[in-house]
């Protein structure tokens, strides 16, 4: 009797282990599409078999084995950080590039050409009111377009700043969720696969937003620090970061567009630590690419340099001449005005001098040539003799400015496309290791089914054979 009970006990253990194993398979299938889920299998341990010693054998379930590969997860996170960065760089530089017409048929380039053409027409008939008005109209269009361009770029900068704030908020939310995971994990002895899936899904989302390092502690909790060491989550503590827009006190350009800064929980500037993820891409576009155009605390920005140089050069030429060749003719006055509060204000404030009229345009140069000034101004279209920026004509400088921005966008777009492939491949490789294959699970179920059917058939055969053999036994 004791043997019968032992066998039944062993069978019960095996069934219990089997049920657990099947529950794991079911959980795997249920979570096949759950982000961050790693396929689980049950650790089945054979039990000692010695009936005389009360050891009934069978098999027992001893915890779960996760197919998660930490290095594969780390590789995915690293690739997603780069992808996030390139995505934002491509998107933001595309937004900036949209304000420039690379063909030169519209916008600032076209207006600059029209201004030079107006100077050229004026040089032919320097005293003709039509030609003079043509210069003023072209100058007005040029100034307006430069203003609009500077305004559009500044608005895009504000939009990027808004995205940066939004990303920082998301990062803090994810850090809070991971902190909550740590609290739960700290209170449990064994990892819960579903909780683990949630953690890894959150880590993956976080890696798209920012570059960070992850350390799993002995108690299973996760420590997250930004690449420069600023903490996000340590054990059950979370450290919020914040986004601010600021121009440093005492900056050379106090009126410049504020740069985007990221502060740690103590208020330290950690912007330089953020080089990856969408936040890294946005910071780069805002603080490097956009600043190179509109300027910042320390630099004028190429658009301001352009606007100021064009205005100063034209104004200087006009102011050096006179409105007529006769003695006592009035001196010329400036064609443009702009706010010279600091190096970053000219483009947004460039305007046609409100005091200028056709009659006050000065076509006569300082040597008394009747159209000398007008010719000098017209020559700016193709020559650097009377004015240039970094040895380039104004047109070439502006083209270079557009070209540099286009280059930024091309590189970012190419990087994004390549990185998307790399990230996809890395994810596929990771999923092959730790993901749930429904085909594999289905195949496994069919294999078990065939195995049970074979056993059932043999048991039936044996049952019938044993019974028929008993029936064949003679009766004495």
């Amino acid at each position, binding site marked *: 009797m004791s043997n*019968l009970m032992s*066998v039944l006990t062993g069978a019960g253990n095996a069934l219990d*282990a089997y049920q657990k*194993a099947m529950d794991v398979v079911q959980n795997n299938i249920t979570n096949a599409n759950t982000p961050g889920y790693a396929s689980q299998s049950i650790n089945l341990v054979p039990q000692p078999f010695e009936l005389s010693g009360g050891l009934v054998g069978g098999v027992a379930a001893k915890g779960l084995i996760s197919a998660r590969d930490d290095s594969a997860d780390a590789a995915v996170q690293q690739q997603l950080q780069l992808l996030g960065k390139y995505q934002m760089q491509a998107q933001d530089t595309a937004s900036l590039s949209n304000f420039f017409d690379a063909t030169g048929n519209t916008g600032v380039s076209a207006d600059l050409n029209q201004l030079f053409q107006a100077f050229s027409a004026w040089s032919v008939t320097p005293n003709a009111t039509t030609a003079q008005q043509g210069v003023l109209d072209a100058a007005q269009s040029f100034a307006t377009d430069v203003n609009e361009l500077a305004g559009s770029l500044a608005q895009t900068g504000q939009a990027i700043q808004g995205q940066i704030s939004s990303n920082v908020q998301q990062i803090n939310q994810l850090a809070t969720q991971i902190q909550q995971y740590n609290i739960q994990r700290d209170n449990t002895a064994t990892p819960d696969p579903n909780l683990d899936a949630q953690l890894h899904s959150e880590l993956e989302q976080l890696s798209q937003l920012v570059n960070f390092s992850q350390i799993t502690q002995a108690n299973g909790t996760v420590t997250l620090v930004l690449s420069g060491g600023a903490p996000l989550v340590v054990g059950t503590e979370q450290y919020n970061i914040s986004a601010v827009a600021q121009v440093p006190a005492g900056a050379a350009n106090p009126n410049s567009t504020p740069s985007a800064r990221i502060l740690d929980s103590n208020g330290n500037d950690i912007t330089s630590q953020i080089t990856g993820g969408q936040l890294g891409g946005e910071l780069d576009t805002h603080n490097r690419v956009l600043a190179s155009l509109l300027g910042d605390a320390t630099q004028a920005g190429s658009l301001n340099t352009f606007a100021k140089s064009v205005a100063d050069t034209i104004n200087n030429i006009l102011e050096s001449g006179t409105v007529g060749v006769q003695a006592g003719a009035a001196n010329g006055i400036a064609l443009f005005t702009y706010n010279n509060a600091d190096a970053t204000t000219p483009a947004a404030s460039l305007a046609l001098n409100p005091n200028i009229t056709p009659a006050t345009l000065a076509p006569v140069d300082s040597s008394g040539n009747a159209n000398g000034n007008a010719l000098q101004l017209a020559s700016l279209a193709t020559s650097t003799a009377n004015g240039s920026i970094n040895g380039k004509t104004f047109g070439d400088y502006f083209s270079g400015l557009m070209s540099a921005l286009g280059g930024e966008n091309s590189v970012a777009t190419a990087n994004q496309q390549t990185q998307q492939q790399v990230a996809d491949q890395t994810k596929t490789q990771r999923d092959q290791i730790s993901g749930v294959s429904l085909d594999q699970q289905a195949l496994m179920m069919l294999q078990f*089914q065939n*195995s049970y059917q074979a056993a*059932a058939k043999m048991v039936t055969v044996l*049952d019938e054979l044993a019974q028929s053999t008993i029936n064949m036994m003679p009766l*004495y």
Partner: protein
Amino acid sequence: MKQSPRLMSHLQRAEDHVQNAQESWDATDLSRCAECVEYLRHAADELLLAQQFTGESDVPSAEMAAKAKDRLQRLHSSVNRLSRLVDAAMGFHRRLALDTGMEEAVTSESNG
């Protein structure tokens, strides 16, 4: 020569195989399931031989017949217990297949 000892040795081997089958059965391990089926097949072979000897020759004594019957009944009980294990595993499998929407597994099981 009496055939009874050979009958008893086949019964002994059948018992051993069924015992091994019971120990091998692990519904979560395909290789052990296969091993169990193999033991059952051997047990069936031994029982067929035992049946052959029972039919071809007289069992020499009432005592021997009683012993043989007793062994066969124990064997029968063991097979029944194993049958319950296998049935339970198939029940779990069917439930799992239904729960997870793998209807082909249920269909194939029903057809099989």
